[in-house]
C-alpha cells in the first residue's frame, strides 16, 4: 500500500488538473512546483528533526539525556529554539559588507534544494530525472563553499575570514577525492543518471564491489560537510564559529540548518551511489522503496554523528596532507584497479 503513496498522489493531482481542463504544459509546471515545494518542506522539517536527532545521539554518547522537556521526548525543542532565534535581534557588524552579509544566510539553502530536486527518493520518485545527475550534483554541491567564504569575507571579522579561507582550502582538497571516488562507480555503470545507477545495483551494492571508493567517499564527505574530525571551518575551540561568528538570530540558525541539509545530501548521495538507493535488500519488498531510502540515509547520518562525537579535530596542515597524500592517491588507485578489473572481466566474458 505504502509503495506508491507519493507516486499515487502525483498521478491523482495530474488527473485532477487535466480533468479541470488545464493544458498539459501548465499541468507539468504545476506538478513540478508542487514537487519542489514538497522537497523544500521536507528539507526544512528534516533539518529540524536532524538537529534534534544530533542532540539526542550526542547526549547518548556523552551519557546525558539531551532535550526531553519540550513536547513528547523533547521533539519540539528545535522548533522552540528556532522560535527563540527568530525573535533575536540581527546584529550588523561594523564595516560589514551588508548586502553580502545579509544575503548569504538566505542563499545558503539554494544548493541543497537544487540537489534534492534530482535525488531518487524511491521507485519513480524523482522530481527531475536528469541524465547527468551525478555531474550536476557534484557541481552544485561545491557551491555552498562560495557562500561560506562570502559570509566569512562579508563579516569583517578575522575569525570569519580565517574560517572562510579554510572552507575554500578544504573544498579544493576534498572535492577531488570525492569525485574520484565516485568515478569508480560511474565507470562500472557507464552512466551519470542516478536512477540507472540505483538500478544497476540490483545484484550487488557498490559498497561491496567498491569498498575503497566508499571509504574515500565517506571521509571526503565528512570533510565536505565540515563535520568533526574535519570541522575546521567552524572549529569552535580555535576560531569561535568560523564564518558564522558574526551572525546572530535567524541568520545563524539558517547556517546551522544548512549544515544538516548538507549532511543529508552527502548521506543521500552515499545511499544512492553505494548502498543501493531505494532497492530493498534480501528481497524485503513489502517495505516501500522510499522507506528503504530513508532508512539507509539515516543510517549514514547516524554514522556521521557517531564519528563527530568521538573524534577530535584535525589540524589544518594535516588536513591538506591527508587529502592530497592519502585520499587522492587512494582514489586514483581505485580507479586504476576498477579499470583493469573491468577489462579482465570483459576479456573472460563475465562482463556483458
Amino acid at each position, binding site marked *: 500500500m505504502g509503495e506508491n503513496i507519493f507516486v499515487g498522489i502525483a498521478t491523482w493531482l495530474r488527473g485532477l488538473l487535466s480533468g479541470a481542463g488545464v493544458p498539459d504544459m501548465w499541468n507539468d509546471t504545476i506538478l513540478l512546483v508542487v514537487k519542489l515545494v514538497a522537497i523544500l518542506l521536507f528539507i526544512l522539517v528534516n533539518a529540524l528533526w536532524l538537529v534534534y536527532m544530533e542532540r539526542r545521539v*550526542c547526549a547518548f*554518547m*556523552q*551519557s*546525558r539525556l539531551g532535550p526531553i522537556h519540550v513536547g513528547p521526548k523533547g521533539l519540539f525543542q528545535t522548533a522552540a529554539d528556532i522560535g527563540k532565534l527568530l525573535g533575536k535581534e540581527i546584529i550588523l557588524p561594523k564595516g560589514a559588507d551588508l548586502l553580502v552579509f545579509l544575503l548569504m544566510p538566505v542563499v545558503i539553502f539554494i544548493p541543497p534544494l537544487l540537489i534534492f530536486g534530482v535525488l531518487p527518493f524511491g521507485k519513480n520518485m524523482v522530481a527531475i530525472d536528469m541524465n547527468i545527475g551525478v555531474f550536476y550534483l557534484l557541481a552544485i554541491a561545491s557551491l555552498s563553499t562560495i557562500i561560506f567564504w562570502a559570509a566569512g569575507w562579508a563579516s569583517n571579522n*578575522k*575569525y570569519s575570514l*580565517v574560517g572562510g579561507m579554510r572552507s575554500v582550502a578544504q573544498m579544493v582538497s576534498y572535492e577531488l577525492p570525492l569525485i574520484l571516488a565516485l568515478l569508480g562507480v560511474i565507470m562500472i555503470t557507464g552512466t551519470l543518471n542516478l536512477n540507472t545507477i540505483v538500478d544497476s545495483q540490483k545484484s550487488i551494492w557498490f559498497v561491496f564491489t567498491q569498498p575503497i571508493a566508499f571509504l574515500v567517499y565517506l571521509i571526503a564527505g565528512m570533510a565536505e560537510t565540515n563535520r*568533526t*574530525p574535519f*570541522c*575546521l571551518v567552524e*572549529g*569552535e*575551540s*580555535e*576560531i*569561535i564559529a568560523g564564518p558564522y561568528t558574526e551572525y546572530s538570530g535567524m541568520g545563524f540558525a539558517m547556517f546551522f540548518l544548512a549544515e544538516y541539509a548538507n549532511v543529508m545530501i552527502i548521506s543521500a548521495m552515499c545511499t544512492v551511489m553505494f548502498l543501493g538507493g531505494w532497492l530493498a535488500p534480501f528481497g524485503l519488498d513489502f517495505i516501500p522503496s522510499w522507506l528503504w531510502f530513508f532508512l539507509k540515509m539515516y543510517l549514514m547520518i547516524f554514522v556521521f554523528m557517531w564519528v563527530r*562525537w*568521538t*573524534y*577530535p*579535530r*584535525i*589540524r*589544518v*596542515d*594535516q588536513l591538506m596532507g591527508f587529502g592530497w597524500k592519502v585520499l587522492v592517491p587512494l582514489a586514483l588507485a581505485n580507479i586504476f584497479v576498477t579499470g583493469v578489473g573491468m577489462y579482465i572481466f570483459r576479456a573472460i566474458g563475465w562482463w556483458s
Partner: protein
Amino acid sequence: MKTETYTLNLGPQHPSTHGVFRIILELDGETVVKATPVPGYLHRGIEKLAEARTYTQVIPYTDRMDYMAAMLMNWGYVAAVEKLMDIEVPERAEYVRVIVGELSRIASHMIATGAYGGDIGALTAFTYTFRDREYVLDLLEMVSGSRMTFSYFRIGGVAADLPEEFFPAVRKFLGELPAMCDEYDGLITGNEIFQARTKQVGIITPEMGINYSLSGPTLRGSGVNYDLRKVRPYGIYDRFDFDVPLGQNGDCFDRFRIRIDEMRQCKRIIEQALDQIPEGPIMAKVPKVIKPPVGDAYAEVESSKGVYGCYVVSDGSPKPYRVHFRRPSYINLGYLGKLCEGWKIADVIAILGSIDIVLGEVDC
C-alpha cells in the same frame, strides 16, 4: 607575492582560553609569528585584600585562586602561617589533609584532561571527565559541605573530622578510578588524530623548562623529575610510596598523559593514607585570635598545576602585613609566548590547554 602579517586578538572572550585570558597573535596566514599573552582580566587583588583580613579570614580567598583544586590552595596558605607560628599539626589532621588534597588533585586533573579533549575538538571527553568529577565533588562535599570553594583547612588542622560514611564512599570511588582512567586513555589518549595533534607539538626542553621556572606536570612532561612531594616532602608525604610519572619528549601529549598517570598515583597515596590514618584530634592547640610573632615564612606545596608557594609577613598584629602567592599557573604561562611561535592557530590552543591554567590563579 607580497604578503602581510595580521593581528588576531584571541580572547579575552574565547571558548578555549580557559577563562578571560587574552593572547595577541601576529599571524602569517595560519602560522603564528609572534604571540603576546595578556593576563590580568580576572585580577581581584587577593593579596591586597588579605592585608585587611585576619589570618583565618584569608583562607576563603585562597579558595578563589585555583578553584579547581581549592583544597591545595588552602593548604599552602595555612602551611605558611603554621610555619610562622611554629604550630605542630596533629597526625590525624595531616592524614585528612593528604586525603582531601589528593582528591582535589584528581578533580583538577579530570578537568584538565576533559578540557584538553575539548580544546582539541573531542567534546565528548569533557562530559566523561565531568561525570566522574562529580564523584569527587560529592566526596568533598561530604567532608566540607561545599563543592568548589571548600575553606576546609584551618590554621593548625582542618575544620571538621571526616564523617563516618566518607570512608566506604571514597574506597568505592578509588575502586572505580582505574577504570575511569582507562576510559580516558581509550577515548582520548589512544586516538590517532589526538596523537597527531599533540605529539611533537609545543616542545619544552628540560633546560628551558628549568630556566623559565616551570613546575608541575608542565615541567615533568619534559622529563624533569621534580615533584615537591618527593623532592622536599612537606606534611607527611615521606610516608607514602608512589611514583612520579615523567614524560620523555616534553610535548603536549606528554604533558596531557602525565595528568592521567598522576590520577592513578593519587589513588595509591589516598589508599595508603586511608590504611594508616590514626585516631586523634584534628586541630592543634591554637589561640582564638591568631597573632603570629613578628617575622616572615614561606611554605610551598605541590598543587595540581605546579609548585604553589605562599609567603606571609607578620608585624605582630592579627592581620597579615603582606601575603604573596607564588601561583604556578601564572609562572608556567611565562613561556607561552615563545612556545607558540611558529605553530598554527590550532596549536596555540593545544599548547595553552596542555599547560592547564586556571585564570583565578593566574590573575589572583
